């Protein structure tokens, strides 16, 4: 499954970012192969429409699911239309890797 997670640093071992639209990095992870890649979030520098910019990026990456601390109404609307599942970081998650492991075990809460 292809995941995208919001992060503060360009590494799977680095800390998560609980923001979606304006997180600095988005980490793409292929859970089958454990391959990952860091992308600069196009929403990060935006004064407006950051959620849409970030969501458009995730949609263009053809992710199956996206993980963050919260999703604003515009990003959420776009993901619902695109049938991309949104999941939330819980309190315990510190690194992106932690979140990937929890996701694979289906232990991350679904964002409705």
């Amino acid at each position: 499954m292809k995941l995208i997670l919001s992060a503060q640093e360009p590494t799977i071992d680095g800390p998560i970012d609980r923001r979606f639209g304006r997180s600095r990095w988005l980490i793409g992870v292929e859970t089958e192969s454990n391959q990952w890649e860091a992308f600069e979030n196009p929403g990060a520098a935006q004064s407006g429409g950051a959620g849409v910019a970030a969501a458009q990026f995730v949609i263009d990456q053809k992710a199956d699911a996206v993980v963050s601390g919260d999703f604003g109404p515009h990003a959420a609307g776009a993901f619902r239309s695109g049938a991309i599942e949104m999941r939330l970081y819980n309190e315990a998650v510190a690194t992106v890797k932690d979140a990937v492991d929890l996701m694979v075990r289906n232990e991350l809460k679904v964002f409705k």
Partner: protein
Amino acid sequence: MRIAIASGKGGTGKTTVAAALAFSLADSHKVRYFDCDVEAPNGHLFLKPDLTSSQEAVIPIPQIQTEKCTGCGKCVEVCQFHALARIGKTIMTFPQLCHGCGSCTFNCPEDAILEVTNRIGLLERGLTREGIQFLRGMLTVSEPMPTPIIRQLKKWTPSTEETIDIFDAPPGASCSVVETMRGADFAILVTEPTPFGLHDLRQIVGIVREMNIPAGVIINRTDNGSDAIDRYCQQEGLEVFYRIPFERKIAEGIARGQHLLQIHPEYQQDFIKIYSKIGMEA
């Protein structure tokens, strides 16, 4: 002559000053007062206009004609406000982010975008008893963007003769304030002798410098403590035109809906002099 009244910090007394200026000049000039604080207009409380005319404020937003749309995504690419997204071959619009620039419509290769009007507020105008032309805009509750209304308000009535246009700006130092001040010949910056007053004065001064608008300062609610503001103004080469005292009588009068010249009729001469000074410096 176009004069903007701005402040930086909210609640310093912009409308008090703007109204006083308008009233002081109404006998001898054709004065137009524009309430550009379209999110929370309050000029009518002092000017008490008879509102006789109104017009809807609208911005054009895109409506995708799905039968013509090929999902090429060109509109998404050109929109700098991210008001459009492409999901598969469907284009999704976000009207609240749309600034009505028309770029998507212009660039669509299939002519698949129809511009529909989104009503975002109301423009109103009328005359006061003193013959001041009063104009204001009101942003509809829940609409996020005041700037297009301010732009439309300023364009609503063409200036056919020599008028003194007073633009009462919103508080702050963002887009709506810049739009209000655009094209002004002079800016009166109203501040108060508090740390926040000075902090926000610096921001608005930065903006008038960027916009190349000559400015002067009025310090409202002065008591003994305006040294920091005076020092700052001196450093910046900004003239302090006037000081309004920190007086209970003024607060009481304003709370009763009186304007400054009703509370202190002797201030009228002072405001007339302020206008002459502006006339020489603008």
